């Protein structure tokens, strides 16, 4: 029996069908890749923010007065840098262990940097990228009322520190201060 050859029309139909299937598949892959890129960048952002929250929560939970107690445990400088003394606990370098001074600031490269100072040493750590500005607010007890203030009282620590970044998102951290939000009364 003589074998029949493929006609030109059949070849065109096959090519047409293949191109339709391939274009559908290609557009699907492009869409998936775009979504994947978006998700991974969002995930990166979420992870960075989670790191900021974890790191600063640890730092602000261990705010302590410096050895020279005449100094404030937390203060804002004129350039809106937040300085504080905290217990860095155990570090491989003993100079950075225990009570140290920390600084939170946004640098020229738009990075939120946590600097730790000890004697003549300094250590920097990037906490968050793409930060244009950081605004600090402090929850302070003022005559039996709790108020958000832009400055810190001289002698005491605030109850909560609120850090607003890029006017976009806000983090709040509790501080062990004399002014506690919850007051426990002794039973009679």
């Amino acid at each position, binding site marked *: 029996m003589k074998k029949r050859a493929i006609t030109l029309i059949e070849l065109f139909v096959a090519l047409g069908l293949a191109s339709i299937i391939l274009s559908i598949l290609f557009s699907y892959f492009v869409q998936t890749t775009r979504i994947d890129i978006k998700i*991974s960048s969002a*995930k990166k952002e979420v*992870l960075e923010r*989670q*790191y900021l929250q*974890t790191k600063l*929560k*640890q730092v602000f*939970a*261990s705010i302590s007065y410096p*050895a020279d107690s005449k100094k404030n445990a937390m203060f804002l400088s004129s350039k809106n840098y937040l300085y504080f003394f905290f*217990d*860095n*606990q*155990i*570090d*491989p370098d*003993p*100079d950075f*262990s*225990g*009570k140290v001074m920390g600084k939170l600031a946004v640098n020229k490269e738009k990075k939120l940097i946590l600097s730790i100072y000890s004697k003549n040493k300094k250590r920097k750590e990037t906490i968050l990228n793409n930060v244009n500005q950081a605004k600090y607010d402090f929850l302070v007890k003022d005559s039996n009322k709790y108020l958000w203030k832009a400055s810190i009282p001289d002698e005491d620590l605030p109850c909560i520190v609120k850090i607003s970044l890029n006017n976009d998102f806000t983090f709040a951290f*509790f501080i*062990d201060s004399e002014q506690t939000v*919850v007051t*426990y*009364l*002794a*039973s*009679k």
Partner: protein
Amino acid sequence: MNILVTISTILLILALSTQSILSKRIDVEKIQISHSGNMQAQRKAYNLCEKNLYKSKKGKKAESSKKNNTTIDSKTKKTIHVKDKVEIHGCSQLNIYPLFLEENKNTYELLARLIKHVYKDTSTFKNANEKNLEYKLIDQIILAGKNLIKNKQDVELPKLKLQNEKYQQLYYRMLKGTKFYDPNKNIGVPSLLDVITINSSTSNRICIQHASYNILSSLFNKKIAEKIIKNRLENNKITKEDFNKILEQENIVTQRDFNPLEFISFTHKRDSYVTVLGIDEKTQITIRKTKKI
């Protein structure tokens, strides 16, 4: 033959891309779990601190109810409570400050016993393979403490800078302890910060009412330590009579250069600070928190 090569190439590409996607996902998952564990541990530590603060403000009425609860707990969870380690009272830690001021043989010996008791089975201690390692380490600690006092700096345990790099690494590992520590299951070792302290304003006496299992074992032995803690749990506190009775039963003999009874104090001074450990059992993340009460 050509088809076989093409198919294997496609399979290889697919395998590589799947592997990279999977490893990325695993990394993200690990970070997420570690973050949630950290938050959980911090929350637990915070809650424990607040609980202690609330307890410290309660009156006598609350004290009596606590007594009842402890007795019930001790009956049902005797073994769990014997080596409990979530709360660390300052009065139950060995104060090594006297060692920086003058020669104090008793404190020196107890510290050596304590270090040996807690850390002798750790890999770092075993790998060092040195005789009398604990004594050499203490000598370095004393030297570092004296240096800080001389330079009028804060004397804190983590700030001690040992001259010998090898001992410094060993000391750092002891300060860190193990990631997860469960004395009831004999898993890991505690941080050195849980067992010793540096306090210039108090003596080196240890409150028997809150003394930890490790301290009591180093002072006496494991059997006496367990008996003291059991008695303390059943009666809410241990009396001098009960304590002497336990010592008589166990026939404890005081040595010439080390008298454990010199460290014991029966009156508990109210703590101004409490240290708690927030532990997330799932991720085994431990967070230490000290709060003024």
